[in-house]
């Protein structure tokens, strides 16, 4: 390494050498701050994970069963499925791999200023659009400005608001007619083109996770000539061209004649077949080889798929979960009742019954073992006697009668609720289940007094706690408020040093076990199915699927 390292890396490197910094966290830090992934891996004495399984062969078609959605506006995508279609044609500036490490893509190299406010992005110089034009800084700047424009309606705004945007009163109204604050770039020079292949992001606050944010799934780099629209024939820097697209039916991608700058693609064609939402149809299609892959597996189909000799189940541990959380109203206004709920739950049984063991038992504090600052504070085992005693102490010697709201899809959620309700019965918590359609649940999820809500994987523990449990946060669905918790959380967020963060995290986790509003029964592993002939594919924790790496071993 001849280039100068970012001061934080030098510091982190010393901490890693002293054993204070965990290997994986150091890796993530080093890569985020501009060290190339293979170099970072060698700095911590690890070999970079290889995807290669023998020499790739050329040719063939891969068909995947996935919903075929309207994909006309990449920057406003709100479904992973949409992004999984367009990403075959369009590239991202960076790519976060299955190991949670972010690597270069269209951005070849990046540097952060010591205060983490200014990020310099160096673009690859060898990339051309399929229609022949050279990919330059103008293209990247156009895309970044567009996703950060309030009028576009992209969710990238929420992600980078604190870093580079500022609120102002533009006289906008929301759908209910209430005044809404508009946002704009905080400075005219916030997104700065330095030269044809260099961009500077001049933020007004520090942000460590810019490279990760650049891989947020709607931030696909479109050709400015397409005006932010995407469809059949749209230009792209990716490995494929979209040649056919019918919502609800299928999408077809053809490999570009010209070699892809990032290697591959190996297959000639990639097709997405819409099989609807019925899990049985997905298995049938897989069984009769009408599709070679299924985007995401369902627990109900797992036993059948395991019997299909030509199919393999791919799975990866994540921080995905669903939590049974309470509002602070009777009887849950008493923290002893909330504790009783946790003591009455047998997480191992929920994992086995609802997820067939695919995942890990939860620990009721919403910080997963995959999070870098996770603190192992011991496992809370089911204790019916203790749960009963707590209920009696709280003034409910005969137990309580409550109703939990849940949704029927995905199937494991309702199954988990049913299993927990049976367990709670033993402790005198008599619970009715009110099942409502998903759409209705999402319209009311923060309002129901007792509900079972799904939470997606977030890379950091502090992120999920800040989103879901900080006093007054928009997604604090439990209306929970604990001053001590808020204070400690802010403290934890200020530490770059993962060990310091972990020490505070242990305190936060204990507060959640003592006073917290939620039962966190499991950590899900996400899984899907693929034909054994497909090589070069590994499942991503967010189920991002790139066809350019796949090849067929016939």
């Amino acid at each position, binding site marked *: 390494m001849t280039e100068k390292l970012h001061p934080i890396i030098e510091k982190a490197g010393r901490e890693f050498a002293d054993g204070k910094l965990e290997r994986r966290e150091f890796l993530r830090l080093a890569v985020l701050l501009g060290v190339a992934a293979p170099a970072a891996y060698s700095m911590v004495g690890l070999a970079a994970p290889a995807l290669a399984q023998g020499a790739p062969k050329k040719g063939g078609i891969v*068909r995947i069963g996935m919903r075929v959605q*309207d994909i*006309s506006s990449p920057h*406003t995508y*709100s*479904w992973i499925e949409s992004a999984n279609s367009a990403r075959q044609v369009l590239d991202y500036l960076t790519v976060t791999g299955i190991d949670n490490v972010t690597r270069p893509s269209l951005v070849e190299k990046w540097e952060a200023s010591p205060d983490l406010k200014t990020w310099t992005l160096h673009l690859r110089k060898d990339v051309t659009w399929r229609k022949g034009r050279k990919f330059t800084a103008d293209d990247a700047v156009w895309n970044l400005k567009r996703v950060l424009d309030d009028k576009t*309606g*992209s*969710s990238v*705004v*929420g992600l980078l608001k604190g870093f580079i945007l500022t609120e102002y009163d533009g006289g906008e109204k*929301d*759908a*209910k*007619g209430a005044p*809404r604050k508009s946002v704009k770039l905080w400075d005219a020079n916030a997104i700065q083109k330095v030269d044809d292949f260099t961009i500077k992001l001049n933020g007004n606050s520090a942000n460590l996770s810019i490279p990760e944010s650049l891989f947020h799934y709607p931030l696909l780099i479109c050709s400015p000539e397409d005006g932010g629209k995407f469809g059949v024939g749209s230009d792209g820097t990716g490995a494929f061209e979209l040649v056919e697209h*019918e*919502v*609800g*039916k*299928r999408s077809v991608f053809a490999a570009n004649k010209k070699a892809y700058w990032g290697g591959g693609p190996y297959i000639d064609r990639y097709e997405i*077949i*819409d*099989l*609807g*939402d*019925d899990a*049985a*149809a997905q*298995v*049938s*299609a*897989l*069984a*009769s*080889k*009408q*599709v070679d892959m299924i985007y995401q597996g369902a627990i109900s189909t797992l036993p*059948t798929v395991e*019997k*299909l000799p030509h199919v393999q189940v791919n799975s990866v541990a994540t921080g995905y979960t669903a939590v049974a959380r309470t509002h602070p109203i009777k009887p849950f206004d008493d923290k002893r009742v909330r504790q009783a709920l946790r003591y009455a739950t047998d997480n191992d049984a929920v994992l086995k019954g609802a997820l067939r063991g695919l995942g890990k038992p939860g620990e009721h504090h919403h910080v997963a073992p995959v999070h870098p600052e996770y603190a192992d504070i011991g496992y809370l085992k089911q204790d019916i006697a203790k749960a009963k005693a707590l209920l009696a102490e709280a003034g409910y010697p005969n137990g309580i009668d409550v109703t939990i709201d849940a949704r029927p899809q995905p199937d494991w959620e309702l199954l988990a609720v049913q299993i927990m309700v049976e367990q709670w019965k033993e402790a005198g918590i008599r619970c009715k289940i009110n099942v*409502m*359609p*998903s*759409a*209705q649940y*999402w*319209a009311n999820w923060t309002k129901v007094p007792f509900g079972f809500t*799904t939470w*997606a994987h977030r890379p950091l523990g502090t992120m999920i706690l800040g989103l879901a449990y900080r006093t007054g946060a*928009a997604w604090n669905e439990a209306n929970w408020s604990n001053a001590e918790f808020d204070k400690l959380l802010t403290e934890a967020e200020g530490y770059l040093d993962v060990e310091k963060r972990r020490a505070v995290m242990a305190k936060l986790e204990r507060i959640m076990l003592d006073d917290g509003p939620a039962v966190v029964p499991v950590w899900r592993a996400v899984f899907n199915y693929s034909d054994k002939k497909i090589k070069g594919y590994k499942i991503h924790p967010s189920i991002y699927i790139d066809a350019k790496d796949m090849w067929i071993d016939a």
Partner: protein
Amino acid sequence: MLRYSAKQLLNMALTLFAVSFLVFALNELSPGDVARKILGPYASESQVDHLTVQMGLDRPAIVRYFEYMGKALTGDFGDSIVFRMPVADLMFDRLGNTLLLAAISFAVIVPLSVVLGVLAGMRERGWFDRTISVFSSMCASIPEFAMGVFLLGIFVVWLGWLPGTSPLRSDSGWAIWMQFVLPVLVVTFYDAGYLIAMVRSSMVEVMRQPYIRTALLKGMSFNRVVSRHALRNALITPFTVILLQLNYLVSGLVVVETLFAYPGFGRMMLEAALAKDIAVIEAGTLIAVSVTMLTQLFGDLGYMALDPRIRV
């Protein structure tokens, strides 16, 4: 007859208008908002607001209803918000697929039911009658999805003889006709069970009539009695029932279409309803209601042809 038909058609127009209003009102009352349903759980609140305004859904329902009906009367059924294409094109494609499945099923179900029903009913309580009765009531009582999963288990997962889904494309290695086998089989088992029972009981009733006994006592051969005197009379009642199956075959195939990922009308309607895609729901409902009412009209006219005593 012409006056009767004209009256019925006018009746139909009024019904359609009433239905269109009811469907719109019910759709408004059903839970969840359209933008949230389209964007899914991970979309931000501001994205939802954005789309709501963009789609004009922040305006009063009654305004949107009259706007929709005004356009519909000029033949513009709008665009589907789920499938992103003109409703007219979508309907044409999906309804065509369903009609094809319905026609094949109908062509199998009707002769099968009539033949088996008549054979069973002409010798009441004979061994054939008993076998058919048990078989038909068994078929009619197994729900389509159970029958479907059962057949999928045997022919797709275990034997591997047939394709598991029916996208109606031949490029995945299965001929299109093979993709029809399982859906038609499921529909046939379910529907024929019921029809056979209907034809059989009607046949049984006719065979008990005095004129049949007279004909037999006269020395006429059994086969001749059945074909000359019993058959036509026995088919009058089932005729309407048979026509009513058309309704089921056009708008009731939701389960079969979903199970086999068949790109048909029922599955389209299900998805539209789940997403509150009002343009598709309205047009689809109007088509389904029209089919029902037209088959009734044809039923009445056909009844007249079969039974000369009836005049309308």
